[in-house]
């Protein structure tokens, strides 16, 4: 008797399975399930564009409609990856254009996207609907024009913090009058002014527009007329909030805001003047997300705003909020899930706001029972504060603490911050993401290795004493997926000893550490399923095995060594002349 589930039935069942994690499990059951699953997967996510070839992905998922790709390692955000390293979108777009012309959605993060890429997208995918580029670079506004003019069913065009060569605001005028399908438009990262009349016409003919994020060049006055045309917006990113308006314009703007009954997310607010904050009061109670991280507004002007945001789940602010402001958040924003506090000063460490201390975060941890994600920049911290935070919030999933003074100890006891982070990893059993900072010894990493069993991503800078720490992490953190380290004395021994672990992780980044050239070669030999990239812009003339490398980026891959490496990236395959290592690592 054939007990196999007919594939049509399986297909139907799978149409209800959205999660790729589940689908990955389904595909492991047996060959026929693998086949059925792969033919029905619509949404494909590749979190390291070099882990697999575009052709392999296209071959496996012919019915792909949505592709998400990530390119450069996370530390590229902080200029630690030299320009030209890689992460090119072109090979993917080219492959998909040929094999999956029904592709509708493309989401790229930290990739190099050129105008050629955008033109290719516009020309190849007839039903293209969604383009979301996050932290991408390499294209100009001309590329945007190509998308605008050709994609007649475009729904989403979002540029999130991209570096764009801005040749002017004309690109917006290329959206044809026949385009009425727009749901989301985000051009907040562009500099040039777009023509207001074009923008107004676009907004008026987009009845489904739910999300609009303007750039700074859009004036406050213009905002008023746009809001009147789109009161149905759920997400709004304003432009500059600082023009001087006359009384009539102000009351019109106030009226426009009060008509926005659906607004849940507010951002932008560049240069907001304190006298305009009251304009926002009417939308505050409905807000679940508020991004004030570019709003240079200080206390006490923020207070009135925050007390009204009782439904806030996500708050991004600058440290201008001070401890006092965070206390108000703790008492007013009981639904808060995510808090990010960015420094307001210039890069200098001494420049930040001293009226914001560890106490602010402690207050929020006390007052907000749903708080699960924290990013907190501050100048100093204490173990006691972290212990309190951990005790208050064992439900934390993401804890990123950036004490900006490297090697800063607990400022009250002068001890390392080991005990504080111990409390965090011990109590917060579901912690998935952790960034540590301040003065840390071996012990901190022993604790993390012992307790951080669900930890998937860990970021470390200027910490530690020895290889033992890396060993604790690699041998202890079972779920570890991404590890990024800079300026720590971790080196060869732990790395080579835990080489097998590296195949279970997505990637490992180490820069300005103590990894020797020899160890890199040894790892490359031992672990063929890893790409071991040595990224060194200033290599020594002769590279003895003992010489340290500037950066090493190791990731598992099915694709083998990549073909687009620049000359400052060394791998044993690309540079066979560097020879195998005769290093004996104990």
């Amino acid at each position, binding site marked *: 008797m054939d007990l196999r589930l007919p594939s049509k039935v399986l297909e139907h069942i799978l149409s209800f399975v959205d999660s790729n994690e589940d689908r990955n499990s389904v595909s492991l059951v047996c060959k026929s399930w693998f086949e059925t699953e792969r033919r029905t997967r619509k949404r494909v996510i590749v979190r390291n564009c070099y882990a697999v070839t575009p052709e392999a992905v296209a071959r496996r998922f012919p019915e792909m409609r949505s592709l998400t790709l990530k390119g450069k390692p996370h530390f590229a955000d902080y200029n630690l990856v030299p*320009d030209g390293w890689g992460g090119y979108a072109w090979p993917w777009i080219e492959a998909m254009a040929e094999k999956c012309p029904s592709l509708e959605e493309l989401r790229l993060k930290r990739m190099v996207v050129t105008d050629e890429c955008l033109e290719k997208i516009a020309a190849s995918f007839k039903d293209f609907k969604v383009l979301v580029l996050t932290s991408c670079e390499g294209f100009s506004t001309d590329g945007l024009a190509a998308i605008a003019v050709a994609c007649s069913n475009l729904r989403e065009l979002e540029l999130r913090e991209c570096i764009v060569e801005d040749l002017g605001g004309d690109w917006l005028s290329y959206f044809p009058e026949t385009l009425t399908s727009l749901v989301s438009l985000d051009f907040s990262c562009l500099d040039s002014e777009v023509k207001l009349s074009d923008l107004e016409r676009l907004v008026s003919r987009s009845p489904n527009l739910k999300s609009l994020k303007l750039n700074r060049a859009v004036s406050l006055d213009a905002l008023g007329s746009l809001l009147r045309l789109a009161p149905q917006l759920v997400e709004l990113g304003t432009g500059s909030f600082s023009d001087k308006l006359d009384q009539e314009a102000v009351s019109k703007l106030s009226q426009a805001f009060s008509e926005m009954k659906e607004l849940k997310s507010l951002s932008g607010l560049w240069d907001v003047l304190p006298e305009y904050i009251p304009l926002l009061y009417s939308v505050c109670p409905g807000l679940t997300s508020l991004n004030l991280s570019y709003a240079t507004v200080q206390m006490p002007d923020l207070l009135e705003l925050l007390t009204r945001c009782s439904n806030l789940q996500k708050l991004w602010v600058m440290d201008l909020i001070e401890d006092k402001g965070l206390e108000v958040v703790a008492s007013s924003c009981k639904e808060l899930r995510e808090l990010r506090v960015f420094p*307001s000063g210039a*890069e200098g460490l*001494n420049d930040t706001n001293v009226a914001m201390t560890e106490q602010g975060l402690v207050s929020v941890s006390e007052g907000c029972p749903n708080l699960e994600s924290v990013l907190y920049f501050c100048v100093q911290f204490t173990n006691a504060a972290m212990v309190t935070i951990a005790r208050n919030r064992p439900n934390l999933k993401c804890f990123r603490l950036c004490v900006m003074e490297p*090697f800063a100890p607990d400022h009250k006891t002068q001890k390392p911050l080991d005990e504080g982070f111990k409390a965090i990893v011990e109590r917060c059993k579901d912690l998935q993401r952790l960034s540590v900072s301040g003065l840390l010894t071996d012990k901190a990493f022993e604790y993390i290795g012992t307790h951080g069993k669900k930890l998937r991503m860990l970021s470390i800078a200027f910490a530690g004493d020895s290889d033992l720490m890396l060993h604790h992490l690699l041998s202890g953190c079972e779920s570890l997926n991404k590890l990024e380290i800079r300026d720590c004395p971790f080196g060869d021994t732990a790395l080579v000893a835990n080489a097998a672990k590296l195949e279970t992780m997505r990637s490992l980044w180490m820069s300005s*550490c103590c990894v020797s050239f020899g160890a890199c070669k040894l790892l490359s030999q031992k672990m063929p399923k890893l790409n071991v990239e040595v990224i060194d812009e200033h290599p020594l003339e002769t590279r003895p095995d003992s010489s340290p490398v500037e950066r090493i980026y190791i990731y598992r891959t099915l694709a083998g060594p990549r073909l687009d490496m620049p000359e400052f990236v060394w791998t044993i395959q690309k540079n066979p002349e560097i020879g195998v290592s005769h290093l004996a690592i*104990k």
Partner: protein
Amino acid sequence: MSESVAAEHDYIGLSMEAAQMSDNKTKTRDNNNNKNDDVLNFKATELRLGLPGSESPERVDQWFLSPKSSCPVSGAKRVFSDAINGSTKWVFSPGSATDVKDIKPAVPVKEKKSSAAAAPPASKAQVVGWPPIRSFRKNTMASSQSQKQGGGDNNNSETEGEAKSGAEPCLYVKVSMEGAPYLRKIDLKTYKSYVELSSALEEMFSCFTIGQFGSHGGCGRDGLNESRLTDLLRGSEYVVTYEDKDSDWMLVGDVPWEMFICSCKKLRIMKSFEAIGLAPRVMEKCRSRN
């Protein structure tokens, strides 16, 4: 493997000292690395991630010369503490040599607060990618400065790969006041004259009697404001002083407004009698500037 890794490290205390001690102290400590893996040894002097010639070999941190520690981080740690205290430009490529100023231990912020008048210069360290703020944010905040400035100031619109230079004037300066329990921060660019500044300060610190900044409505021409402000400041119980680029404390009001906002790093409202000593230096500086 484990044994050699676990054996020798008992420098928990030293790791703090390594970062904090003055470079003049030579570090000598037991170097338990007489193991057989000397393959990874190399002289720290061969590698210069810091500035060529900026440190002498005998100041090399001996603690780091173990098999695992023949690495640039010893240099990095040391250079970093130099960097935060000595305005050394620390990037991957060898930069130009600068003076390494007196090394001051990395003290917690509250210590700095208590001795504002004698505080060492707030130097800006240039370490690539630290603090970890996205380039986009950095560029945006920097261009926000230059936008407000109206292009009249230092050109900081170039966006290099490295962290931005600290040459542009501070957007925010701290304002402290004698006897006040907290500091405030203000954005100097939101004011166009000393009069605006003084009324803002008065508002900010009004709960502490500042004295007669007074209601001098109708101050017309800017040219008058500076000297008038100085006069009325000198007449009152408190004066406003500022720390300039050269780390000198000066009386607010003696230089033209534009020059003031370029050079002001910190403001402090102190009692008049404390500020008397500042006057002669102020005169000198003004003379040398004019």
